[in-house]
């Protein structure tokens, strides 16, 4: 009963790993964000990151279900 979460760039570096999991079967993206802010209170970049569910950008009210892949996308800087 868990949701897989991908972290990149500054977030990956601060948390120390690219992939983590949190318990849960259904919650909003915003709840995922809050869970991580509670778990890593020193990592404020969770606040400013965009989120993606299954490789598509999502809003905080979008629903995440078990098996979904959630990614935190810090401000991008490609090109």
């Amino acid at each position, binding site marked *: 009963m868990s949701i897989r979460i991908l972290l*990149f760039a*500054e977030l990956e570096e601060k948390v120390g790993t690219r992939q983590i999991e949190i318990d849960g079967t259904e919650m909003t993206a915003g709840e995922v964000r809050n869970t991580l802010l509670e778990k890593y209170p020193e990592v404020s970049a969770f606040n400013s990151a965009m989120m993606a569910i299954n490789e598509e950008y999502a809003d905080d009210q979008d629903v995440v279900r078990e098996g979904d892949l959630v990614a935190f996308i810090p401000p991008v800087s490609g090109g």
Partner: protein
Amino acid sequence: MNNNNFEIINTPIQINEVINKVEDRNAGAINTFIGTVRELTKGKKTVYLKYDAYISMAEKKLAQIGGEIQKEYPESKVAITHRIGELAISDIAVVIAVSTPHRADAFAASRYAIERIKEIVPIWKKEHWEDGEKWMGDQLEHKPYPEGKPEKGDLN
């Protein structure tokens, strides 16, 4: 348009390979944008860069940009390759190629593509200077979207 037209790779980009993907008997114009690693940014000397990406999503978003361009310019062909990993000064980070029957469209579409990459494609650059390093994209060094995230309409 083939999905291989939109690639994230971790080896040097061959410009010709990207251009070849957009060749077309009815293209009279090909515009190519090549983004390279610049040594000086705001007086600060870059030693090298590191790019990372959410590869699967980034390739999807590059393909989305290609789709947006084809919707606007139905006769266009688009190919984009972005490199990740460690890059030295003058190395090529990204190559965009757009072919169209007439030149004005090729210029406009190529320009659009690079601006969109900087908005929606999950790729991150870490600058390494002599005195430190930093993931770019934060609000001090570069702000990719005014509201901290893309507008809803920009995303889908």
